[in-house]
Structure formats: structure tokens, C-alpha cells
């Protein structure tokens, strides 16, 4: 499974688009927006198929933080949380990001396998400038709220996500 949480600004040319999970593609869930019916990947916010495909429209990435609930609550005591009684609560389950391996079903739908890292190896994804980089999460050091990742090319540091108010 993908174990990938990503945040986006859902405004496209000033209009809010709303999304729902609509299928699977290349080992990932894909989503459809109610406004156009286009099919999107949630990895980078680009259109796979539909009326917006082939253009330059993509969703703008937004900071999102992954952390234990106890730490998040301590840091942000006024946080809000979705209700748990949604009618689907019996489907919710404890998950370990990166755990669980890759089932034969998911492996069979992969278009391209990349063996540079093991299945389920967690990375910190960063997009700076024209490209994307992935840093092994296990190798990331922390200095308070600042994460420091080294690679052969560079050392980068970044501070936990906070979105500017418009």
C-alpha cells in the first residue's frame, strides 16, 4: 500500500474542487474531482485522465505533518479532529505506515518497479525547484522542529509544515 499522506490546495483557477477516491492505478489509489470528473494521482496532484489531462493544471502541494497523536495534541491543543462515528468505523484499523508489505494484487498492477529501496521503506519527499528528492526517513536527524537530511549531493533542512493564511 502506498502509505503516503499528501496535502493540496484544491483551488483550481479560483474554484474549489472536491475529490473522492475512485480507483486504483499503479499501486496507488486515484481520485476524481466532482467538478470535472477528471482522474488525478494524489502523489503529485497531476491529472491522469479526463477533461483537464494534457494541460498544465496541477494541484499545489501544501505542508502536512505526520506525527503521533499525543505529540500533535500537546503541540496544538485546540486542534480539531474528524468524528469517528461515520458509519464506517468498523473499517478503520490500526496501520503502521510502510508496514504490511505489498500484496500480489498490488504488485501485479505496478507499471514500473524500482528496486533502489526496499518495499515499504519510508522516505521524506521534498520538491524543490524542478525536481523531487526522497530522503530515507530512518536517516533524517531532528533538531527540534527542524529535520536535517543528507545526501551525496547536498544537506537540506526543513521546518515542519505550517501553511500561511491567505
Amino acid at each position, binding site marked *: 500500500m502506498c502509505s*503516503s499522506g499528501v496535502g493540496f490546495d484544491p483551488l483550481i483557477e479560483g474554484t474549489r474542487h472536491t475529490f473522492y477516491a475512485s480507483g486504483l492505478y499503479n499501486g496507488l489509489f486515484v481520485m476524481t474531482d466532482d467538478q470535472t470528473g477528471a482522474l488525478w494521482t494524489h502523489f503529485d496532484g497531476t491529472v491522469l485522465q479526463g477533461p483537464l489531462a494534457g494541460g498544465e493544471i496541477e494541484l499545489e502541494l501544501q505542508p502536512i505533518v505526520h506525527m503521533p497523536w499525543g505529540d500533535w495534541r500537546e503541540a*496544538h491543543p485546540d486542534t480539531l479532529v474528524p468524528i469517528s462515528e461515520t458509519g464506517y468505523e468498523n473499517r478503520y484499523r490500526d496501520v503502521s505506515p510502510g508496514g504490511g508489505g505489498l500484496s500480489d494484487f498490488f504488485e501485479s498492477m505496478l507499471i514500473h518497479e524500482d528496486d533502489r529501496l526496499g518495499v515499504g521503506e519510508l522516505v521524506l519527499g521534498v520538491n524543490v525547484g524542478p525536481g523531487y528528492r526522497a530522503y530515507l526517513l530512518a536517516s533524517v536527524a531532528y533538531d527540534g522542529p527542524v529535520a536535517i537530511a543528507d545526501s551525496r549531493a547536498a544537506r537540506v533542512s526543513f521546518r515542519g509544515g505550517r501553511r500561511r493564511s491567505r
Partner: protein
Amino acid sequence: MVTADEVTWLEHDDIVMGILLDSGEAQAFPISQMTYHHVANTTLAGEPYLVTY
């Protein structure tokens, strides 16, 4: 949405995805829920936000 004080179903180590504004307003989405729903269309301080997992 409910406040943190109303949350009784999450343990300390349960992973959440958090979004935060400069104003300090915050929302947290447990991945135990997101693994099922995959998508949350939410609004924070009047601003739309899309959370995916």
C-alpha cells in the same frame, strides 16, 4: 469535527496527519481513518484544503 478533549479513541502513538495555519488553527486526520477514506475535503479558517492518504 470535534475538539481534542472529545477524542477518546486515539492512543498517544496513533499517527495523524496534521495541517496548521499561521494563526495556530489546526486539524488532525488519523491515518486509521484515512486508510479507508483516502480523501478528506476540509476547510480550515475558511480556506479549503485537500488531505489525501
